[in-house]
């Protein structure tokens, strides 16, 4: 099939076409630029939710239960679940779907697993593009799940409107959370598996942290207790998400946020393209190797070497 044939089927809401288009873009195959151009004109209607939190916190189960609720409101949902690629084999075991099997026969739910393929920010490289595709397809809510939070998994907040951070009672003390920067990116905090010991302690710690960090904020992230596997706390989560959505809308923050997201994306892409250009330049690579050897053999200093390299680039 040609790209335009795929896009035509995409317009007709064909699932296979959607899936194939995602693959083309994810893999960067021929036609992905054409697709992205087409898509970019049709995005902006979907509400994007991010779920992050340590592995084992139950994000996938929470997402599944939340989706079940959203389906009752007749929403069309797209889910992107990210899992890490093995640094050794470059393969991946994508198992987030296991917790979502109650959604497999739902017509309005599309689930796509993505391996990070070397990306280090908890998401796959093309996560944003795939979210855009789901948006253009007509999905009203797009949920993105990171692989599991570490200090680096804060990138998700740049891709979505609302970020939900999911902990479990064993998630370590408040200081660790502060260090990880997670309190800065969370719009909603959830303590899942809240029947386990330590849930209360973590709850109060989080609440205190939030009091301190968000003193002058209009939006104070709520802390919710859930037991996803028993369907407990899901309605409260849904409510909190809608409240955050309303907060963003009423304060014109939704547009602001998306504006910033676009700017950031433009900057990132621009940077990447520039880097590509320079690294692909044979002449610059040669100069780089030369200067490297000069520094190595102590013919010039490090900062001199950098200046020399820059001059070379500027002369272009």
């Amino acid at each position, binding site marked *: 099939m040609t790209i335009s044939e795929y896009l035509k089927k995409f317009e007709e809401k064909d*699932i*296979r076409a959607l*899936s*194939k288009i*995602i*693959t083309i873009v994810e*893999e960067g*195959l021929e036609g992905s630029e054409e697709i992205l151009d087409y898509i970019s004109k049709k995005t902006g209607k979907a509400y994007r939710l991010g779920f992050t939190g340590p592995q084992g916190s139950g994000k996938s189960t929470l997402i599944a239960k939340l989706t079940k609720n959203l389906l009752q409101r007749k929403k069309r949902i797209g889910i992107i679940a990210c899992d890490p*690629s*093995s640094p*050794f*084999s*470059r*393969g*991946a*075991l*994508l*198992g987030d*779907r*296991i917790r979502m*099997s109650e959604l*497999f*026969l739902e017509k309005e739910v*599309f*689930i*796509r*697993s993505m*391996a990070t*393929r070397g990306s280090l920010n908890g998401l796959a490289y093309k996560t944003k593009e795939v979210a855009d595709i789901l948006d253009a397809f007509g999905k009203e809510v797009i949920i993105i799940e990171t692989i599991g939070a570490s200090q680096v998994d804060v990138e998700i907040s740049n891709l979505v409107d609302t970020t939900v951070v999911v902990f479990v009672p064993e998630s370590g003390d408040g200081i660790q959370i502060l260090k990880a920067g997670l309190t800065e990116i969370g719009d909603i905090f959830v303590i899942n598996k809240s029947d386990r010991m330590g849930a209360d302690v973590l709850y109060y710690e989080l609440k205190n942290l939030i009091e301190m960090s968000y003193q002058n904020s209009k939006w104070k992230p709520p802390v919710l207790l859930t037991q996803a596997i028993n369907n407990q706390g899901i309605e409260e989560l849904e409510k909190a998400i809608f409240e955050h959505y309303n907060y963003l809308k009423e304060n014109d923050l939704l547009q602001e946020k998306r504006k910033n997201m676009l700017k950031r994306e433009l900057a990132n892409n621009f940077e990447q393209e520039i880097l590509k250009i320079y690294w692909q330049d044979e002449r610059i690579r040669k100069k780089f190797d030369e200067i490297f050897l000069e520094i190595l053999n102590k013919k010039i200093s490090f900062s001199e070497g950098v200046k020399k390299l820059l001059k070379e680039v500027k002369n272009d």
Partner: protein
Amino acid sequence: MKKKIKILIAKPGLDGHDRGAKVVARGLRDAGFEVIYTGLHQTPEMIVNTAIQEDVDMIGISILSGAHMTIFPEVLRLLKEKGATDIHVFGGGIIPDEDKEKLYQMGVGKLFDPGTKISEIVEYINNYFKDKS
């Protein structure tokens, strides 16, 4: 040419024996493939829906409960119905040779016996794609 080959490892029906499926899933991951595993008690419809959404290249069905003559044909039928016959189906488990023959006739790929090495499965997958290109 695609960078990554994606395989769905499926446990259909009521069969709860997942030792083989899990070992194969892990082995394929270690061989560099992207593997999707959806857990137990999948119906053929669930399997095909997943295969299509994830745009997998192959579905590997693990079945030891004797229900293979119902499950495989149903998966093939659904793939045809949804216009996804380019997804290759193979499998493994407890399947007598007689039944294997019948399934091969229907278009199922290789059916592996107990005792198969992971490396055999990896070779099979790689050869399949080498032949295709």
